[in-house]
């Protein structure tokens, strides 16, 4: 357990949201921002600075890698700017880090539920 914690330290909320967005499929930067907003019902909106700062860290850590845009996307997009956009993909290590974070959050939720139950029992 301890070694797993050292290997996969808790993720920041921005990092978690980015990895969650990419778990649904390869996305370009603006796609990630829109996916994160959609997943959080518009409550959490990443700025480009925060997004690329985190993406750089994730790419350096080997959790995310970039790929050229798919051919179908190139055909659909009319502007050159859109053609140049890179897509980001979750690597095997990235999937592992996301799974570890979800397990950690699950433990937190279980502990919180147990504490709340104890508190309610104490009040009764």
């Amino acid at each position, binding site marked *: 357990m301890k070694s797993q914690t050292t290997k996969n330290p808790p993720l920041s909320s921005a990092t978690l949201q980015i990895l969650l967005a990419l778990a649904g499929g390869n996305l370009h930067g603006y796609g990630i921002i829109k996916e994160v907003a959609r997943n959080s019902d518009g409550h959490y*909106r990443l*700025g*480009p*600075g925060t997004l*690329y700062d985190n993406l750089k860290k994730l790419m350096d850590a080997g959790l995310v890698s970039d790929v050229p845009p798919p051919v179908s996307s190139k055909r659909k997009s009319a502007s050159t700017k859109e053609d*140049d956009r890179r897509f980001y993909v979750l690597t095997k290590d990235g999937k592992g880090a996301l799974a570890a974070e979800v397990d950690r959050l699950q433990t937190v939720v279980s502990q919180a539920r147990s504490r709340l139950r104890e508190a309610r029992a104490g009040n009764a």
Partner: protein
Amino acid sequence: MISTISSSAYRLLLRLHPVSFQDEFGAEMLWIFDEECEQGRVVPLLLDGAISLLRQRFRTQNDPGQLSIASGTVITGPGMDPVRLLQGGVTFSLIFFSLIQLLSHPNLLTVSVRWSDRVPCYTISLQAPSHAEVVLDTTP
């Protein structure tokens, strides 16, 4: 007009980022900024860009890489002197928050351009809350 000023401010912020970061993500960040600006999220995006700049700068402090500044000059060395970094930070913050103040009160600043003998003449009018007005006219 406001979108032009905010876009220029964002470009300036991007140019203050480390060169490697600019090369890798600058174009995509600018593209997203333009898209998001259409939804009226200028101030949060500028703040986000400023925070990103600070993060990148503090991260590159220990790197022997290059530091580019707005004029395009490249300074090489083991990182920026902390005193210079502090001075630069204070100056930048003053300019940045003044700009945000102006952007959030569009009536305070008006800029008009007219052409005189193919030379652009700018009239910049800054109106103080007490209705005093400062006008800078570049007409020859």
